[in-house]
């Protein structure tokens, strides 16, 4: 628990600093739900936007409307190691500026095709020792990984799209002929 405590103390410290007159960030509230991450509502919104870019609403529900961004933050908050967490948080905090500097436009201002293209460009680029780029690649890959996990293991997908059965029943067939064209259910 040492690290949690240290972070809390640090939060108190920076919180204290934030009260110093003239500080621009004083109105940006830190979200208590993700105590390890120390992120603001604006940053949460940014993550929601990213999650929605990865899995937008189509004929199917999108990730954001299922609240998957909250799952991504819960996992980043609780399940990442210290170093990875730092990379994730720094990635999230600096993302908008990084996109603006590299692509000439804030991510939030981009239309959907441009936003998708931008994410693919960042993730697909050879990092070649560019630590900044590596950090944002890590951030995006982690966000995508948790987005996929949260979406695929959502109630929506596991009941309506690929039904999961809590009580499958006693019949197990070790050898069942596949019917051509049948939909494959990964939870079946």
């Amino acid at each position, binding site marked *: *628990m040492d*690290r*949690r405590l240290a972070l809390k103390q640090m939060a108190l410290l920076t919180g204290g600093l934030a009260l110093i007159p003239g500080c621009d960030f004083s109105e940006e509230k830190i979200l208590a739900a993700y105590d390890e991450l120390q992120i603001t509502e604006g940053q949460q919104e940014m993550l929601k936007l990213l999650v929605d*870019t*990865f*899995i*937008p609403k*189509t004929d*199917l529900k999108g990730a954001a409307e299922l609240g998957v961004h909250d799952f991504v933050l*819960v*996992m980043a908050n*609780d*399940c*990442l*190691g210290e170093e990875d*967490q730092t990379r994730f948080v720094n990635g999230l905090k600096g993302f908008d500026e990084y996109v603006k500097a590299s692509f000439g436009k804030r991510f939030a201002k981009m239309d*959907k095709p441009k936003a*998708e293209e931008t*994410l*693919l460009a960042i993730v697909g680029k050879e990092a070649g020792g560019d630590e900044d780029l590596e950090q944002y690649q890590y951030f995006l890959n982690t966000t995508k990984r948790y987005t*996929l*996990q*949260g979406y*695929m*293991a*959502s*109630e929506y997908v*596991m009941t309506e*799209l690929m039904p*999961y059965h*809590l*009580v*499958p*029943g*006693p*019949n*197990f*067939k*070790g*050898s*069942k*002929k*596949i019917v051509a064209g049948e939909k*494959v*259910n*990964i939870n079946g």
Partner: protein
Amino acid sequence: MANLNINSVKENTYGAIVIGSGMSGGFAAKELCDKGVKTLVLERGRKVEHNKDYPTTNMMPWEFKHRGQIPEDVVRENPAISRCYAYREDAAHFFVKDTDHPYIQEKPFDWIRGYQTGGKSLLWARQVQRWSDFDFEGPARDGFAVDWPIRYKELEPWYSYVEKFVGVSGFYDGIDNLPDGEFLPGIELTAAEEYFKQQMNEKYPGRHVISGRCAHITGNAEYYAKQGRGICQHRTLCQRGCPFGSYFSSNSATLPWAARTGNLTMQNDAVVHSIIYDDEKEKATGVRVIDANTKEMTEYYAPIIFVNASALNTNMILLNSTSKRFPNGLGNDNGLMGKYVAFHNYRGGISAEYDGLREFTTEGKRPTSGYMPRFRNVYKQETNFLRGYAAGLYGSRSKEVNYDGIGSDLVNNMMNPSYGPWKVGSHMMGETIPKESNYVALDSDQKDEWGMPLIKINVDYDQNDEDMLKDYQEQMAEMFDAAGFTNIRTWDDGRRPGLDIHEMGGVRMGHDPKTSLVNKHNQLHACPNVYVTDGACMTSTSTQNPSLTYMVFAARAVDHAMKNQG
């Protein structure tokens, strides 16, 4: 010293005391209660009642905050338990955290514990293969440990007796070194496993592939309804506790059964400090118990005491039971108590793919998998290492999800999974050789919160284990190759001893009081009203999952106690 007035002695006196409510303690308690003995079961952990205390049992995957994963800070603080495959969000509450009950690792050892009613019987992998004389005769034939003072013939009726109560699914396979038992309907192999089985029959006669016999009810529903248990519904969420009571645990089977006799007194939060030995009567007379919450000590008395605290904890209690007669621990005249600890070597694994049988898949889930009984050194010594290994085996049709892309492309990709090749694989279950240098002992200084000395664990692999591991990898790879499997990959996961959760020995059984601690009826040679019928009594480890054999010892020992203890 506890309050010793005559009333409290009377109140605290039972026909028998069983220390531990897990697999073997639960069975001992059931047998004692069935025979009309007022039985006190002492469990150091909290109360876990069947169904009532299975908080996650009906939870859906999406209801778990971390979808099963254990948070990072818990993993960091509890490295040993976090390496256990079943320590996940849905069952974490049934495992002991490293931080809650520290122990001393003089050599690395992942000690996996379950402190609650039912112990680890809630969490076990439920594989129940019988031993045979190829196992019991091992030490004598190969010249290690000491000779087992029993043979299969003596245990055979007890295996049947226990299996009938437990409920064991299996097929009658007719294999010399893996005797058939009392089976409920078996669960079939997958197409790929069945194919591999046929390949072995053709190319490696004598190497058998079977469906692992498992402690699940698959038939005879009326009989098990009397235990309040139902047919297995293949949820494969056993580690959460089963709402149908379909897999065997103390919680679902033996303890409720014992309670219904009216003879059971179950006491939780009861940390056993030691067994009381009366120098004048020359026998054990009771047990000293520390209340886990108040830390107060109370004495309980009985003419028969069963020690089933789990292998290493049984060693700890006996070593801590010192008296004038037994200054080094109860029954420890030869100084061998705590020594000759062994386990199962699970380090080896293999995975591969099979491109055939493309038109088939499987349907439903199953609570078991394939199993290959030991085929090395069975009839004669044939390798540069002693003994051998069994192999867990699986072959399942893979489903592939394409997570490439972003946006609607990604959605389209991932919502259209396809069948991939059959994925086949195996893990090793190797017999290890008990050695004097593999031992546990009590630390002379450090004590836990309850004033019990910390246990020091000195258990390690040896060259025999390394050679056997290499052979497992070579043989499995060769067999997979012969079966036409591709992308064959073998590994040594380097796991520490203990993670197999099959630690055994320290209070080994033998003919001779000079070289062993308990006799063929599981009585301490030097204190015969104390029976040790959990993993501590094991002279050698064989390759089979041991719980079934512990229960067999427990049932048989109760029968002996009834016939021989006044």
